[in-house]
């Protein structure tokens, strides 16, 4: 296992640091609103919140470039947003509206966006991993320097798809960054209760690829680790497995009564919350004032408010279009 870069002062310019803080705030405020809207029945279906894990998406996605491919899971609101899918389109999707990023057909679990090469939004645990290997294979065969970043939780590691995809990627030296967000629970089943080997990097190493574990509650650690990992992949050295050790503050979905973990454990992890720890660090280093923080927060809240208004006002897709796009229009046959 490659050791993550040592932590110290935030090694970034003030603007970049604030940008990442702002993105974490955007996710947090958007999702807090989503939970509220779920209570109001504006958002239906499954809603899996990312609250607590924001440093993972923000830190890693800022180490990628627009031409890279992103494959994510059903807990992907944050990834979509940081990747550049507009909050309006995400919110409208949650509402099931036509102007949603998947025309209201996908909902919370299936956010897609061709423009930002955001390939969902996969609600079959582990389902995105073979897909990511395929993207990377296409890029390799077409001599593209692109990285495919594939996000998944530690639950996916129990799936056969994980092992098959890891093997393919390593065997064919494919440019995939496997980014495992280990939040310790596969829905309600703790890692140690479901997997014999709980050292996830050890499992990935078995496929002959380099691995690294980063503190997923620390956006600096995640970003610096991802930069190293991305460099490895982009240099054509094959896949890389990055584990971000994190924690989900909210329930698995809105239906989850959380019988499987102690409140004390949740509280303990909240002490390490990525937003307040990072903003405290920036303040201590003179890169952020309380006023500046409040400004960013107000901006994030305004964006959320606008997104909700957009989603409310957006039209529903016409039922006449129900069968549209089962197949591609103009198919040759």
């Amino acid at each position, binding site marked *: 296992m490659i050791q993550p870069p040592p932590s110290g002062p935030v090694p970034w310019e003030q603007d970049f640091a604030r940008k990442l803080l702002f993105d974490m705030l955007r996710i947090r405020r958007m999702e807090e609103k989503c939970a509220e809207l779920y209570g109001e029945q504006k958002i239906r279906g499954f809603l899996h919140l990312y609250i607590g894990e924001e440093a993972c998406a923000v830190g890693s996605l800022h180490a990628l470039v627009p031409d890279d491919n992103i494959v994510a899971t059903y807990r992907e609101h944050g990834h979509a947003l940081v990747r550049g899918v507009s909050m309006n389109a995400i919110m409208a999707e949650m509402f099931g509206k036509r102007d949603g990023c998947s025309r209201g057909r996908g909902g919370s679990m299936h956010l897609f966006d061709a423009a930002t090469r955001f390939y969902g939004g996969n609600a*079959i645990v582990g*389902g995105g991993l073979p897909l990511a290997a*395929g*993207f990377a294979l296409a890029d390799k065969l077409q001599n593209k320097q692109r990285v495919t970043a594939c996000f998944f939780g530690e639950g996916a590691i129990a799936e056969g798809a994980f092992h*098959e995809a890891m093997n393919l990627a390593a065997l064919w030296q494919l440019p995939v960054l496997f980014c495992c967000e280990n939040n310790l629970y596969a829905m309600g089943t703790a890692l140690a209760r479901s997997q014999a080997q709980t050292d996830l990097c050890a499992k990935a190493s078995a496929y002959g690829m380099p691995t690294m574990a980063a503190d997923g509650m620390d956006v600096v650690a995640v970003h610096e680790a991802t930069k190293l990992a991305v460099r490895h992949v982009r240099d054509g050295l094959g896949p890389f497995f990055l584990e971000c050790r994190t924690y989900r503050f909210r329930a698995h979905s809105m239906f989850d009564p959380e019988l499987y973990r102690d409140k004390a454990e949740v509280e303990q992890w909240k002490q390490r919350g990525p937003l307040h720890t990072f903003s405290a660090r920036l303040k201590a280093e003179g890169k952020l004032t309380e006023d500046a923080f409040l400004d960013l927060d107000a901006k994030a809240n305004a964006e959320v408010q606008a997104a909700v208004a957009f989603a409310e006002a957006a039209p529903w897709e016409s039922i006449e279009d129900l069968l549209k796009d089962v197949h591609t229009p103009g198919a040759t046959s």
Partner: protein
Amino acid sequence: MKMSYREAIRQAMHEALAADPRVFLMGEDVGKYGGTYACSKGFLEEFGPERIRDTPLSELGFVGAGIGAALGGLRPIVEVMTVNFSLLALDQIVNTAAALRHMSGGQFSVPLVLRMATGAGRQLAAQHSHSLENWYAHIPGIKVLAPATIADARGMLAPALADPDPVVIFEHAQLYNLEEELPEDFHCGIASAAVRREGSAVTLITYGGSLPKTLAAAEELAGGGIDAEVIDLRVLRPLDAATLCASVKKTRRAVVIDEGWRSGSLAAEVMARIVEEAFFDLDAPLRRVCSEEVPIPYAKHMEEAALPQTSRIVAAVRELLGT
């Protein structure tokens, strides 16, 4: 020119690989081994290991990778050894390949061609002999083809590859050694059924490995003065109900021959379409000849008894006509 089904498949793939650098072949033993059914013999030497890609025994993984590669701009032909093994990849086919375009609001097409062998008749028992075409034909978002002639084996791949959506091609394992004349023009579409034999007394509807048996039955019936029309579905999804119903309206009787099990079969769907669209044109109840509802057994006589055979088809028609 006389050609085997195997050779027709091989030539179709060869042509595609030679014509389009985006096309590549991936699957178990497609390279060094030359293909389980020798359909890619010599390809590895000619096109190299990047484009003729031997995979590990990871159906879920490499079918999923095929979907990703299709999304990434290539035109993969993914070969799964048999339909029984494809069950290991069913998640990727149903939950991703078939659903992606609609689920993403029309943003992504998946131009994937998935080939697999299907069917019984070689004493391979219950894990290598099944006909699960109807499972795939149930799924919106994919097209399902069953080439049953040399011309279709040669001609169907090109339109399948040109199709922007996932296409699953079933090659009945009993057909690989079939030899027929390859017509000069084998180019074809993948939208319609074909009338393989014209007749007036009864319509026999079938597909894939049951076509030769059905044509043989029609010949035998002709000897007894019964003039049967034989329709080859060719395309199992979407079903070409128009061709079926036009024939049934003419002959007023139909028997469906399907190597799948009867319950929930493709035959059931075909019969339902006829009932919906041509019920008042029928002079007799519809009938079907399907596989017996058992896992296909190993012993030769037992396997034969489990499958639709020419004699059973003939008997079903005679019973229907009361002759």
